[in-house]
């Protein structure tokens, strides 16, 4: 297949600027880039460019700008909101091919990275120096730093350690007009507007990141993890409230409900305490003396709230055994149900109990089961809405339940997404969370960077023509999960 206008002349020009092995035009190969981790939105791009250097990226973007052709950046393609879905008549710029750790500067507590470096490789490179990279999405074995920057990714440990935006000190960006701009570096507080703050979380709509400088965090003296089992979700929730009220700041506080536990038991035999209606995983890190005292306090709050069993991990393998159930929970629901939707919403922590109650009611009313797995410290819910697409009407009801869960989040002053982003999937929900004026103001920022609207168009900010999309749906386990490359949070 030969590409049509305006791609054909663009391709001809690109042949003189990048290697021919970097230009993907074969339809079968191109089809591998048709979607991200949310497989329901699919567009096969007419052209993909495998970038190997900043100059490659600059060449592609400059040619696109000159020809008025849209372009989309793609990291590892693990995004869960359709953020890197290609433009139908545009160019896909693949950054996963730029994966060098350019500099590991332990003395300055920084790493300088090409955008395709995987999240975990940063920590791997830093570990011998006694450092790590704190934001830890559970896709960390595969997802790229460029994607993390674009999505402002978080992980189980961001309650204490913050998100990607708190750990990026410098970016090199190819702006939508094809210029290379350096923003920040290894030092703090670059003078002028906080463009770093604007770029992190901008979902690839303000330019393509070709280099990132990130903070490395000193490894803690000790990490301690406990698993506490409760009769029901309310008592587990009460324990979380007590822990927070006592002024403790655990590195992670994760919760699973009965259905999620059942799924995890079926999938990985995690052997959580029998009869648990909810489990809490609490992890503390820091100086030995402090963690020891904090842990005792956490255990006390759990028992006082009614935990019937508390297990303390005594070594790394026991810690891994505690986490395995939690980390497998998403993929595991595939055992309970042929189809499911992964939702991502946030509520103020104090509203957790009420919202979970409402979800139970919603579930009873519709006959759609919902398994709950969440970052309890942050109030970040990941409800798994279970359904069987073969049963008439179930898909629609599941989508309805999933959408109404986001409404519940908004009704309590929360957010439509805590980590998966807006992408294409939540354009509709954006208009529920923000007023037209809010969105218009965000568009001001977009126009400053991308006046022609060529950079990842149709994502993040709702435009009138993109409405009525259905919420995230997946069949079975995600391919990455199946291949053992990633664990789903």
């Amino acid at each position, binding site marked *: 297949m030969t590409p049509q206008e305006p791609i054909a002349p663009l391709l001809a020009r690109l042949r003189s600027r990048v290697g021919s092995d970097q230009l993907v035009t074969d339809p079968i190969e191109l089809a591998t880039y048709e979607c991200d981790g949310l497989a329901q939105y699919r567009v096969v791009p007419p052209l993909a460019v495998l970038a190997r250097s900043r100059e490659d990226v600059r060449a592609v973007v400059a040619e696109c700008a000159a020809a008025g052709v849209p372009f989309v950046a793609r990291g590892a393609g693990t995004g869960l909101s359709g953020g890197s879905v290609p433009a139908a008549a545009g160019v896909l710029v693949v950054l996963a091919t730029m994966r060098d750790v350019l500099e590991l500067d332990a*003395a*300055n507590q*920084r790493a300088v990275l090409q955008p395709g470096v995987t999240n975990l490789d940063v920590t791997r490179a830093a570990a011998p120096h*006694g450092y790590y990279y704190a934001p830890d999405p559970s896709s960390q074995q595969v997802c790229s730093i460029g994607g993390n920057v674009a999505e*402002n990714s*978080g992980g189980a440990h961001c309650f204490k350690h*913050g*998100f990607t935006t*708190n750990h990026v000190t410098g970016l090199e960006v190819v702006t939508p007009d094809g210029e290379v*701009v350096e923003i920040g*570096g290894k*030092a*703090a*507080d*670059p*003078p*002028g*507007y*906080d*463009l*770093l*703050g*604007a770029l*992190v979380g901008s979902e690839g709509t303000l330019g393509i990141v070709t280099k990132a400088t990130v903070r490395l965090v*000193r*490894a803690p003296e000790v990490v301690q993890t406990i698993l506490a089992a409760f009769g029901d979700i309310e008592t587990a929730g009460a324990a979380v*409230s007590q822990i*927070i*009220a006592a*002024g403790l700041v655990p590195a992670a506080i994760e919760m699973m409900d009965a259905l999620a536990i059942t799924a995890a038991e079926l999938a990985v035999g995690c052997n959580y305490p029998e009869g648990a209606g909810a489990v809490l995983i609490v992890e503390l890190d*820091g*100086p030995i*003396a402090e963690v020891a*005292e904090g842990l005792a306090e956490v255990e006390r709050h759990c028992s006082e709230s009614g935990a019937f069993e508390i297990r303390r991990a005594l070594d790394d393998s026991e810690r891994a055994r505690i986490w395995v159930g939690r980390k497998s929970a998403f993929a595991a629901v595939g055992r309970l149900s042929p189809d499911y939707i992964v939702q991502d919403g*946030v*509520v*103020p922590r*104090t509203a957790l109990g009420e919202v979970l109650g409402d979800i139970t009611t919603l579930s009873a009313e519709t006959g759609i089961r919902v398994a709950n797995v969440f970052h309890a410290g942050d*109030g*970040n819910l990941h409800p798994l809405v279970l359904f069987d697409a073969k049963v008439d009407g179930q898909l629609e009801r599941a989508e309805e339940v999933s959408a109404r869960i986001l409404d519940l989040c908004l009704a309590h*002053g*929360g*957010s439509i*997404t*805590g980590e*998966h982003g*807006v992408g294409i999937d*939540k354009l509709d*929900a954006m208009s529920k*969370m923000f*007023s037209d*004026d*809010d969105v*218009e*103001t*965000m568009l001001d*920022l977009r126009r*400053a*960077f991308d006046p022609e609207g060529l950079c990842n168009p149709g994502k*993040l900010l709702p435009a009138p023509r993109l409405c009525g999309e259905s919420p995230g749906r997946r069949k079975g386990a995600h391919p990455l999960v199946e291949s053992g490359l990633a664990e789903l949070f």
Partner: protein
Amino acid sequence: MSELLDDLRRGCPAAAAREARDSEVLGDVMPEVVAFPRSTSDVAAVVRVAAHGRRTVAVRGSGTKLDFASQPTSAQVLVDLSLMCRLLEHESGDLVARAEAGARLAEVNGVLGLARQQLPIDEVVPGSSIGGVVATGLSGPSRYLQGAVRDLLIGVTVVRADGVVAHAGSKVAKNVAGYDLAKLFTGSYGTLGIVTEATFRLRPCPPCRCFLTASFPDEAAMAPVLAELLHSQQALTAIEVDRRTPLGPISISALLEGQAGPLERRAEVTAKVLGGASACDGPPEGWGSLPGPVTLKMTAELSFVPALLGLVRELSTEHGLSPVLRGSAGTGVLFAGLGEPLDPTAIGAFLADLRAGCHLFGGSAIVLRAPVAIKGALDVWGPVPALDLMRRVKQQFDPERRLAPGRFAGGI
């Protein structure tokens, strides 16, 4: 009565307004009127009146940092936010608080403290309002552990140049919906919009604090100690340096916070790194305050902090100045304060050399604060990378350049 005042009173009857007083001069710009809105919608009404009449607008919180950065070249309407001083929301279980921009940081923390929580932003300039802290992005020593202002800010309400009210972020800390405009507004000195409300994530108040201070004769002696503190696993809240005279001793202070028992142990380990240190539960003199009256802000990569101290020492001798040096060695953000006699030529030459040095150390140097007479003779910002993008942002947010024109880098 001036026409503008008349328009304001008609356009926004809810906000008191009066003619500006001589004492309210901003640099060498005399505002015509001062408006005292009581709510975000009042601010919006005032800004709409200004927009309609193509008047320029500047903002005052508690007025403690109006002499920071560049001075506006025009400010016909001065919007005073001191009546917008409420703590609007504090849900202790959520570790989140929302306040009006005119609320004083210290007062907000006073209330939060009743629930044993804090907004962990140091009051670097006494009397600072929340809005002023956001607009200048001014963080103190505890940014080492807790993050800078921008890291703690999770949501904003702003009034745009056209008087429209907009929000970004939310009241949950974990949120990736839409652009993070709160960060863009942090440190923008009122040139992109007027922040009227701000939402922050909070931290618990530590039950105990311990300040450890040790003194070192020179940069060579302090360098390995600083490196070891940066590498410490004792979860330090702050690492500060202080040098009162260019050739004098350098003191390093570390702040640790937490439960009494473990704190004692952590302090012991840390004191050993400092080679024996005096311990105190109150801050050493000058802690987290800006030396001045001319204050230069310098940044460098962490490992170059000792070299930066050395550079300041050399340049002081060369230019016949005697700066006080203080700041966050743990984050590489230092302040040099120059006192009387203030010679603009000498300060300008010192600044130029300092800037070149900071650049070599991966950082920058700006004039954070200076008396008007001196500031006019100085290049306040120096070269600012990505300035063109910043201009484009300004052009979108305030195309008529009516919000504090000239207050920011590159004449923005």
